[in-house]
């Protein structure tokens, strides 16, 4: 068994695809019409066969209250690894991304948290070398 896909609940798939590809820099992997929604996944461009991120509609009545409660307390439910968190923070801020937490040393790692404009907070983390 292996983890091939994980998901993030988004309020609008078209907007999410724009943010996750044009701003964050992922690339669309699968885009399959599925009733009213799409099976829409993105991957990291340097790891196209790696774990996919499913941009999943948050239409279920429980999804939005769940997201809102997490966001109110600043909790990121999804986390991505970056090589240089300071550079990534600068790059994303210049693109207008709103950070609730700038890069901050948290023990051996440095983390930051930003708003994905689709109803979620996302953590980026620079892991210690080695």
């Amino acid at each position, binding site marked *: 068994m292996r983890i091939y896909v994980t998901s993030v609940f988004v309020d609008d798939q078209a907007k999410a695809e724009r943010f996750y590809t044009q701003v964050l820099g992922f690339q669309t992997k699968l885009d399959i019409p599925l009733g009213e929604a799409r099976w829409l996944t993105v991957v990291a461009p340097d790891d196209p066969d790696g774990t996919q991120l499913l941009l999943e509609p948050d239409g279920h009545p429980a999804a939005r209250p769940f997201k809102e409660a997490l966001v109110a307390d*600043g909790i990121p439910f999804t986390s991505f690894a970056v090589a240089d968190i300071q550079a990534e923070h600068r790059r994303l801020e210049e693109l207008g991304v709103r950070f*609730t*937490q700038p890069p901050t040393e948290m023990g051996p790692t440095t983390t930051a948290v930003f708003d994905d404009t689709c109803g979620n907070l996302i953590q980026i983390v620079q892991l210690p070398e080695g």
Partner: protein
Amino acid sequence: MGDVFKALADPTRRTILDELADRDDQTLFEICSRLLTKHQLDSTRQAISQHLDVLEAAGLIDVRREGRYKLHSINRGPLEHIVDRWLDRS
């Protein structure tokens, strides 16, 4: 307004203020992360939330909503009153 001295009597609440002194506008998640990773304080989120309520009642922190986030900042006002009362005799 709650009792400033009672609010300051608890070491976890003093550590929360230490961390808020580093940066304004922190979410509950950031405060919990700082306490856990920098001070090995693994209190529950609910416990930290209650500490924040006590600090807010004592006027030692300001809590505001910005958009969908709830942000916490230190308010040094009550501490300055302490200085005025006993230390500022010049």
